[in-house]
C-alpha cells in the first residue's frame, strides 16, 4: 500500500464510520464476515468516484426501487401507483401518453388513437390532481418522464401540492427535462433546440431558487442506447449533453456549484454485463473530472454523477416473453454492481404491450431479490480491481473522450455549441443509426445470438398471453372530462394568462415558470400552453435521414 493509498484508506475509514448502516449482517451466507470494500483506492466516496458516490454504498442505503408506471386515465394510474407503494416501491415514476409527451390535448386530431395508450393522459391541472390523489407529496419522491412540455407538468405538480397544503420547497423528485437527447434519439421535441434550452435553464433557475429537493434535469443516455447506440456512445453523448446543460446554465449567470448538485443521470443497463458495469464506473469518473477541471466546481456534491438505471427495453423479446425475466435479472445485477442510486426493472411483457400488474410486480420482485438475497449489496464496487473491468472502464473513458474532443472542435471550444452543431448536421442520429444497423446485421447473419429470436426458438406460445389492453373508452372518457373542465373555467382568465406567457416568451431575460404556473392554475390545457409558447418559439421539424 503506497503512502497515498494509506491516506485514502484512512480518510475513507473515517467517512465510512460516519455512515448509518442498515441493520443486516454483512457476511456471506456461510457466515464469513465481509469488508465494506476491497482493493485499492481511491475508495467509494472519494474523487473521482469511480468506485461509487458514497463511502458505504448499499450498506447504508439500498438503491431506490423506482418503477415507471402510467396508462389510461389519471385514476387508473393513481391505482397502479398505490399498488406499487403497497408492494414496497419507494418512489413514483410517471409515464405519460404520447399526446401529453408531445404537447397535444386529448381532443386534438394528433391524439386520435393514442390517448392513455403508452402512458397516462394529462390535459389539465384537474387530471394531475387525480393522478396524485391520496398520495402525500411531502413524503413521496416523484419522477416525471417528460421533456418538451416539462415546465407545464412541473407547474401542475407544484399547483397540486400547494392545493393540498404542501409547499413547493418540500417537493422531492425529478423531471427528465433532457431536451437535447430528444433531438438525438427519442424525438419528443416541440420547439427548436435553442428556445427549448431556454425553458430548461428557466426551470434550473426556478428550482435552484425555490425547490431545493428537486432535480430539474435527468440527463439521459437511456433513450440514446435504446435508439441503437453503443455503450460508449451512450456514455459520451449523455455526458456531453450534461456538459452542455452546465454551460447553458452558467451562461445565464448561475454559479456552477449552485445547480450542479441537483443534476442527475439516467443510464441503460443492457445485456453485455461487464461493459455496462464499466460504463457506469467510467461515467462517475469522467463527470467528476470534467466538473472539477473544466467547469471549476468545488463543492463535492457538484462532482457526483448520481445515476438512475433502467434495464434495456430494447433487449426484451416478443418471442417467449417469459425469458425476459432472466434478462432483466442479469441487467439489474449489472446496475447494482455498477453502483446505481435508483433502478427501474422492465416487465417481461414490454415487447408486446404496456406491462400488466402481474408483470410489473415480478419486475419489482426481481430487483428485490438482487438487493436482499444475493449479497451483492454488502460490498461496494465488488468488481473494482478486476483487470478486465478496470481495463473496460478505461476503454469506455478513452472512447468517450474522443467523442468529447470531436464535439469540442465542432463547437469551437464549447461543448454546448458542439452539441447544437451535432444535432444540426445529423452527427448524433447518423452515429446511432449506424450502430443500430450493425447490431441488426449481426442478429440477422447469426453472428449475434438472441435467445428465442434467432436460436432456441421452441416453446413460444403466442396463444396464451395475458396483455394489458387500453380500450377506446379511455379516449372517450378523457375527451368528455376535458370538455367538462373547459366548460367550468373562466375563459377570460385563461386567455389573459396565455397572452401574458406569449409576451414573456419574447423577452429572454424573463423566467417562464411563473407565467406557466399562472396559466396552469387558470386551468389552461397543456396544449394551449404549448401553443402559446409555439407562437414565439416555432416548431422543430427533423430532417428525415436514414
Amino acid at each position, binding site marked *: 500500500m503506497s503512502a497515498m493509498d494509506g491516506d485514502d484508506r484512512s480518510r475513507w475509514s473515517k467517512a465510512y464510520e460516519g455512515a448509518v448502516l442498515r441493520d443486516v449482517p454483512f457476511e456471506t451466507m456461510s457466515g464469513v464476515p465481509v469488508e465494506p470494500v476491497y482493493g485499492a483506492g481511491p475508495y467509494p466516496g472519494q474523487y473521482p468516484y469511480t468506485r461509487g458516490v458514497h463511502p458505504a454504498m448499499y450498506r447504508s442505503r439500498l438503491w431506490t426501487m423506482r418503477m415507471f408506471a402510467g396508462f389510461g386515465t389519471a385514476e387508473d394510474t393513481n391505482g397502479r401507483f398505490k399498488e406499487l407503494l403497497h408492494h414496497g416501491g419507494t418512489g413514483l415514476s410517471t409515464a405519460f401518453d*404520447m*399526446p401529453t*409527451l*408531445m404537447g*397535444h390535448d386529448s381532443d386534438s386530431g*394528433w*391524439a*386520435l*388513437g*393514442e390517448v392513455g*395508450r*403508452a402512458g397516462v393522459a394529462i390535459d389539465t391541472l384537474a387530471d394531475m390532481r387525480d393522478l396524485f390523489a391520496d398520495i402525500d407529496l411531502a413524503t413521496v419522491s416523484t419522477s416525471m418522464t417528460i421533456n418538451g412540455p416539462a415546465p407545464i407538468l412541473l407547474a401542475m405538480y407544484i399547483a397540486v401540492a400547494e392545493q393540498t397544503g404542501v409547499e413547493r420547497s418540500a417537493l422531492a423528485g425529478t423531471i427528465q427535462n433532457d431536451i437535447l437527447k*430528444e433531438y438525438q434519439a*427519442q*424525438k*419528443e421535441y416541440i420547439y427548436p433546440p435553442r428556445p427549448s434550452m431556454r425553458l430548461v435553464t428557466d426551470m434550473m433557475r426556478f428550482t435552484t431558487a425555490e425547490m431545493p429537493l428537486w432535480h430539474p434535469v435527468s440527463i439521459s443516455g437511456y433513450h440514446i442506447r*435504446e*435508439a*441503437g447506440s453503443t455503450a460508449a456512445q451512450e456514455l459520451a453523448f449523455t455526458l456531453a449533453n450534461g456538459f452542455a446543460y452546465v454551460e447553458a446554465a452558467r451562461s445565464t449567470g448561475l454559479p456552477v456549484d449552485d445547480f450542479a448538485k441537483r443534476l442527475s443521470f439516467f443510464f441503460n443497463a443492457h445485456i453485455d454485463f461487464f461493459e455496462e458495469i464499466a460504463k457506469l464506473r467510467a461515467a462517475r469518473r469522467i463527470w467528476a473530472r470534467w466538473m472539477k477541471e473544466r467547469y471549476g466546481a468545488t463543492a463535492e456534491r457538484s462532482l457526483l454523477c448520481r445515476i438512475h438505471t433502467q434495464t434495456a427495453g*430494447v433487449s426484451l*423479446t*416478443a*418471442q417467449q416473453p417469459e425469458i425476459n425475466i432472466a434478462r432483466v435479472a442479469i441487467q439489474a445485477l449489472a446496475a447494482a454492481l455498477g453502483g446505481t442510486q435508483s433502478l427501474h426493472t422492465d416487465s417481461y411483457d414490454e*415487447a*408486446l*404491450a*404496456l406491462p400488466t400488474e402481474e408483470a410489473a410486480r415480478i419486475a419489482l420482485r426481481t430487483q428485490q431479490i438482487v438487493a436482499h438475497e444475493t449479497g451483492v449489496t454488502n460490498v461496494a464496487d465488488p468488481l473494482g480491481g478486476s483487470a478486465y473491468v478496470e481495463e473496460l472502464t478505461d476503454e469506455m473513458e478513452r472512447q468517450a473522450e474522443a467523442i468529447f474532443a470531436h464535439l469540442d472542435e465542432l463547437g469551437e471550444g464549447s461543448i454546448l455549441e458542439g452539441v447544437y452543431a451535432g444535432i444540426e448536421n445529423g452527427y448524433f442520429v447518423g452515429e*446511432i*443509426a449506424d450502430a*443500430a*444497423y450493425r447490431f*441488426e446485421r449481426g442478429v*440477422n447473419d447469426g453472428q449475434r445470438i*438472441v435467445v428465442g*429470436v*434467432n436460436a432456441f426458438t421452441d416453446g413460444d406460445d*403466442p396463444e396464451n*398471453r395475458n*396483455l394489458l389492453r*387500453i380500450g*377506446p373508452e379511455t379516449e372517450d372518457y378523457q375527451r368528455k372530462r376535458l370538455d367538462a373542465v373547459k366548460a367550468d373555467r373562466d375563459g377570460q382568465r385563461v386567455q389573459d394568462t396565455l397572452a401574458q406567457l406569449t409576451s414573456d416568451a419574447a423577452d429572454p431575460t424573463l423566467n417562464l415558470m411563473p407565467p406557466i404556473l399562472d396559466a396552469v392554475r387558470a386551468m389552461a390545457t397543456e396544449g394551449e400552453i404549448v401553443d402559446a409558447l409555439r407562437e414565439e418559439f416555432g416548431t422543430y421539424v*427533423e430532417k*428525415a*435521414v*436514414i
Partner: protein
Amino acid sequence: MTEPNIRILLAKLGLDGHDRGLKVVARLLRDAGMEVIYLGLRQTAESIVAAAEQEDADAIGLSMHNAGHLTLAPRMVAALAVAELEIPVIVGGIVPDEDVAALRDAGVAAVLGPGAPAEEVVDVVRRAVDQRRSTG
C-alpha cells in the same frame, strides 16, 4: 422482362418517435435493391397519401409503437381508398398477435412483428407488391 424496382414509402404514423426499427428496415430494403422513400416521423394518413401519390409508391410501410395501430392503420387504408390508390400497406412495430387478424380485415396487406428477420421483411414487401401488380 425484369420487373421495375420496387418503390416503398416508409413512415411513422402518429406521434411516437421510436424510429430505430424503421431506419433499420429502410437500410435493409435499400440493400435488397428497393428504392426507399423515407418520410420519417409524425406523419398522418393525409401526408402519407400525398407523398405516395407524388412518389408513385408501390408499397407503404408503417411503423407503430404507440398501441394505436387498431385506430390508425385502418384510417390509413381508408384514406388510400378515398384517394383511389391501390397501394398495399404493411405494418410493423409492436403489434400483439391477436390484433393481426383485425388489421388484415381492415385491409392491411401484412403485419411484421418484432424480431422479423431481414429475409422475411424483404419477402413480405415483394409479395405484397407482386400481388398488387398482378391484380392491378
